[in-house]
């Protein structure tokens, strides 16, 4: 039951929609558009007559207009479903070939559809001759020299806030360049303000934003600069010129396969009605260079009024001045740095150091300056000057500094003067007595110090010291000592000494090494022999030979002179070396005699074995040799 109810509701809904659609389709409409409202002679333009509604429309078979050749080229049908609404339409295509230049009117055409007689709107076609002079103001589409509707894709404007200015006055200027975001611009030549009679500062990019103008969205880039007129008169500032690469739909020289969008009903000539922009993948665009140009701006430049103050150096604007001096307590002749900061807005390139109003009694050195700008173009900021002044006499204040500028708002010159800055100057004559020029010069002492000059109230020495008539014999060189060959030659002395020292030390080390090895060998031999003597199994000949050998080796090791050959050691030498008493000395002597006896007289002259007492005695003797 519930299911059948749902089916009924659905049926009713579908029926209602169908009736509505039928009712909608029952009211046919017609429109006609030209693919381009401007053309040149010989260039075809497409005319589309679109009938929406029943499909039995009968378009005009022939359209005859003097100066235009119009031929039907085909029919296309569209069926669309949009938001559950269906619509069908038939588009009848014609080509229009202008035969001559002029303004042509395509009158309303009669179309029969759904039993009704419909009329198309009247269409206007401006035709220029082939040389390119259009009869209309807007740029034509499809010309190779002029990109597709570049004026609609890109614009440039020059904004000059003043219409009247003075010679040398800095005028801030803005340049705005807008690009349709879809053209993906690439600036290949930055904007440049053309024109003569003024100087322009370097352009600074100030920002980028999106703006909607005339219903279209643009990415707007703003540049800032400042201009200054070089002479009086009436000028045209600009136009601003730039060059950019943009992506535009590919230009067709032949009639387009697809015409203007049928929905561009009001002939707005929207370049983005091109299918490229609605579907970039359907048709490939091309990157093209376009020239961008703004309209010029008129500017009247007035000369500066006469009777400028003496301290006027060409500064125009609005400025303030602060001054300071350091140090404030000096000796005569010492430098005082006077810092003057000029802040404000104007042509800082013409802002020179303030003028010292009364230089008498002062040495003035050329000033240094630095500028700290507060904006992109240097129109406002602070220029700081450091002027070194040196008092030639006693002074109580730093001289007054004056700076003048022309205020264009007040249209008059303004003079700024620094406040008196109190200082203390010691060691010179009174300010009223300028003795520097009149006093005869006295040769100063070469070693005179500042303290002396402070005590002695004389002016700074003006004359140089005497000639030196002693000519030293030796000539001297400006070259630093480390660049002279003699310096490097002298380095060979410690180098040779170092090499000699190293060679000597290496040689010593080798000798010490040989002696150490000999001692080690002797010690090893002595230990081996002592080991054999303790074994108690050696025949007497061998035993006494080894015992005497141990004594010799020990003597060689103990010898203070070192390097003694063990073979050269006899009983007396050994006894002396070890400082033996008479008993031990006799024992040692007997040991050597027995050794010689066994060595040279043969084994048969004595017992075949040594008694244990003798062995112990010999061992004790040898072990006590220390």
């Amino acid at each position: 039951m519930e299911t059948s109810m749902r089916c009924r509701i659905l049926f009713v809904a579908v029926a209602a929609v169908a009736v509505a659609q039928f009712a909608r389709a029952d009211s046919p409409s017609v429109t006609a558009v030209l693919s381009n409202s401007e053309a040149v002679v010989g260039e075809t333009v497409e005319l589309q007559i679109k009938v929406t509604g029943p499909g039995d429309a009968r378009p005009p078979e022939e359209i005859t207009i003097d100066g235009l050749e119009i031929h039907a080229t085909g029919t296309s049908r569209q069926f669309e479903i949009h938001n559950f609404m269906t619509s069908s339409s038939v588009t009848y295509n014609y080509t229009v070939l202008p035969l001559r230049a002029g303004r042509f009117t395509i009158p309303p055409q009669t179309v029969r559809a759904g039993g009704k007689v419909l009329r198309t709107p009247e269409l206007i076609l401006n035709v220029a001759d082939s040389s390119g002079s259009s009869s209309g103001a807007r740029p034509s589409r499809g010309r190779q020299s002029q990109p597709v509707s570049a004026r609609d894709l890109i614009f440039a404007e020059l904004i000059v806030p003043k219409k009247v200015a003075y010679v040398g006055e800095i005028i801030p200027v803005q340049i705005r360049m807008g690009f349709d975001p879809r053209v993906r611009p690439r600036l290949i030549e930055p904007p440049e303000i053309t024109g003569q009679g003024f100087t322009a500062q370097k352009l600074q990019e100030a920002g980028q934003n999106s703006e909607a103008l005339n219903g279209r969205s643009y990415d707007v880039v703003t540049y800032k600069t400042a201009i200054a007129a070089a002479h009086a008169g009436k000028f045209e500032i600009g136009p601003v010129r730039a060059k950019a690469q943009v992506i535009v739909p590919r230009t067709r020289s032949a009639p387009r396969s697809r015409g203007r969008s049928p929905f561009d009903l009001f002939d707005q000539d929207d370049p983005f009605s091109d299918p490229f922009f609605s579907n970039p993948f359907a048709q490939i665009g091309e990157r093209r260079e376009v020239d961008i140009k703004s309209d010029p701006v008129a500017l009247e430049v007035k000369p500066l009024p006469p009777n400028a103050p003496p301290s006027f150096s060409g500064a125009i604007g609005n400025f303030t001045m602060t001054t300071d001096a350091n140090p404030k307590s000096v000796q005569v002749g010492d430098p005082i740095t006077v810092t003057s900061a000029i802040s404000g807005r104007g042509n800082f390139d013409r802002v020179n150091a303030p003028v010292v109003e009364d230089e008498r009694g002062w040495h003035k050195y050329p000033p240094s300056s630095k500028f700290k700008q507060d904006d992109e173009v240097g129109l406002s900021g602070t220029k700081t000057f450091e002027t070194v002044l040196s008092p030639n006499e006693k002074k109580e204040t730093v001289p007054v500094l004056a700076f003048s500028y022309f205020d264009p708002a007040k249209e008059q010159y303004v003079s700024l003067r620094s406040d008196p800055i109190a200082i203390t100057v010691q060691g010179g004559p009174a300010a009223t007595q300028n003795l520097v020029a009149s006093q005869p010069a006295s040769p100063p002492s070469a070693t005179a110090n500042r303290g002396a000059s402070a005590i002695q109230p004389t002016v700074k020495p003006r004359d140089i010291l005497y000639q030196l008539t002693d000519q030293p014999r030796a000539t001297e060189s400006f070259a630093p000592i480390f660049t002279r060959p003699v310096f490097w030659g002298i380095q060979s002395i410690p180098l040779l000494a170092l090499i000699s020292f190293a060679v000597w030390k290496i040689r010593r080390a080798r000798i010490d090494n040989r002696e150490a090895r000999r001692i080690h060998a002797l010690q090893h031999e002595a230990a081996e022999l002592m080991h054999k003597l303790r074994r108690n199994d050696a025949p007497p000949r061998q035993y006494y030979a080894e015992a005497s050998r141990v004594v010799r080796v020990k003597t060689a090791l103990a010898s203070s002179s070192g390097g003694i050959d063990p073979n050269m050691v006899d009983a007396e030498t050994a006894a002396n070396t070890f400082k033996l008493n008479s008993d031990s000395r006799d024992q040692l002597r007997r040991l050597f005699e027995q050794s010689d006896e066994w060595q040279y007289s043969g084994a048969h002259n004595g017992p075949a074995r040594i008694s244990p007492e003798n062995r112990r005695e010999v061992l004790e003797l040898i072990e006590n040799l220390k």
Partner: protein
Amino acid sequence: MKIRASLIVFLFCALSTLSVLAQADAEFVKANQEYAKGHFKEAISGFEALIRAGQWNANVFYDLGNAYFRTGDFGRAILNYERALALERHHPEATANLQIARDEAHALEMQPSWPERYLQLASVNHYSIAAATAFWLGIFTIVVLIFARRRSATRIAISICCLLVLAVAVCAIFTLERGSKGEALAIVTGRNVQARLATADTANSVLALPPGSEVKILSTRGDWIYAALPNNLRGWIPAKNAERVRLL
């Protein structure tokens, strides 16, 4: 025979040297006499002839500076006082006259950097000798350390000290040679010299340089030199308007 020939050659050389020295002495005396008579241009010619002959010493440059001062050419006077001081750091007369000439010409001086101010206690030659001495002492100490059986803390400390002294001396040499009074120091000798932003007489002026002002030559391009200027500025000046203090 050979000994006799060698002796003759030696005597000939000695006599030639003495003759040259005597001639130089005579020219020096003559130039001073011209100066005393007030013939400053002749004195300048005499002193410059001596300098061209390689007779470089502080007194000749000082006297030449005085002669230029008398003719009012403060730029060249300052240049020659500077040369005298470059040859002999402690030349009191040159120091005094240099100050007078600078005051007269309102010449600008380069401000030394703070390391330079401290390092100027000694000259580059002093630092060179100190560096060489420290180097060899350090090397000897290290070699002794290598050969010694025992490492001595004293020797290690001496070698480290020597290496530190060497490093400081080398840094000092580098700083002074590259500094405001180093080998690139030049003096403005022309009048009404303007340092400019570019190598053209019409380029914007950076600084007016009175005669005798110090500049430091950074590079040369044709007839122009790019120089560091007083007040931490830089600019181009015509090469003919500045001369290096150090003669090569």
